[in-house]
């Protein structure tokens, strides 16, 4: 590991080319990677605006139950806690995947950690789907009240993001198998990792504000 850290390469953003590549190629790859990652940060910030609006809508709808079921009847805190565990663990394994990509340069190791990340993502999604079905069976459908519309919109938007992240991961497996860990595949994995960590942060907001505040207050 220490040996590969010493290698001169565009490493500060997590992309590493083989040291045998000519300097001009490394420079070009670094510029392209920086541009791609910067663009992706802008996308993430615009996504953050969407989630902010959904959070604000949720906050203003806090008491708009319209006589329908509320958080005490609908939310299962232990299920939400397991979802949190799955997603936090997946963020950790996602971090290990990027470290394996950057320092070990091992395709097998990188893919293994991403596969575990995908598995945890799917665990999260199935728990969430189960939650949604429980909610609906108790009469907590989106059209029932303002509060329910706002919570479904917020939680399901996050769930859709996690679903796209899982599909993205599957596509990246195919690309990694086809192209190997070349600079483009690496920057795409880096962007996927950014996306995944971002969704984790959003989930912490949802867990604290929607579930914890809803059930405990």
């Amino acid at each position, binding site marked *: 590991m220490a040996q590969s850290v010493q290698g001169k390469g565009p490493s500060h953003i997590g992309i590493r080319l083989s040291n045998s590549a000519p300097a001009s190629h490394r420079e070009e790859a670094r510029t392209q990677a920086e541009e791609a990652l910067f663009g992706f940060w802008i996308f993430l910030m615009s996504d953050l605006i969407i989630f902010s609006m959904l959070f604000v809508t949720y906050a203003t709808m806090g008491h708009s139950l319209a006589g329908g079921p509320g958080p005490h009847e609908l939310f299962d805190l232990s299920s939400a806690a397991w979802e949190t565990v799955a997603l936090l663990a997946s963020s950790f394994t996602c971090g290990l995947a990027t470290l394996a990509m950057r320092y070990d340069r091992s395709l097998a190791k990188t893919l293994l950690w991403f596969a575990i990340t995908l598995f945890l993502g799917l665990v999260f999604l199935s728990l969430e789907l189960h939650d949604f079905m429980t909610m609906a069976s108790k009469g907590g459908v989106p059209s029932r009240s303002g509060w329910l519309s706002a919570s479904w919109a917020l939680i399901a938007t996050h769930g859709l993001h996690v679903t796209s992240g899982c599909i993205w991961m599957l*596509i990246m497996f195919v*690309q990694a198998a*086809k*192209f190997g860990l070349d600079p*483009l595949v690496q920057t*795409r994995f880096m962007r996927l990792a950014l996306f995944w960590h971002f969704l984790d942060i959003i989930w912490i907001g949802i867990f604290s504000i929607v579930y914890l505040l809803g059930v405990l207050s």
Partner: protein
Amino acid sequence: MIIQLWVSIRQREALSVSAGDPWNGRTLEWSVAAPPSEYNFALIPQIDCVDAFHESKKHRDAWRAPEHYFDIELPSNTPVGFVCCVASGVFGFALTWHIWWAVLLGAVVFFGAIILRSFNRTTSHIIPAAEVRKTEERWLLTLRETGFIENEAMFTTANNGLVREPV
């Protein structure tokens, strides 16, 4: 519009203004050939005033050949934008009118096109400096062979894209 297309195509030769400056323009888009080359400018123009092309014509240093030519990288043509446009249109229309098979079709084509595109590794191409030089020199030769016309002849077929300068 149909009439315009009809006349433009039928009288293509007579109406062409290959020198590129048929209206004695002031701004940079008139300083290149008509139709312009794929890369537009052989060198990215450096300007230091409003109406730089007009100024350079006044000082008689417009249409100067660049000292060096460089390779130009351009994005390659792709149908993905058009495919996504149509597919998302179908998707939105079908959602509005509850045509579920078309919703699915639109979504699959839209996302499928983007996913397929992500496997394309050559999304740009390089025009070598030698080819840029050839294109530019051919145009500069045309420019030299084109006679100036007076302002009054601007709207006639005598206009080949070069108008006498009002100094």
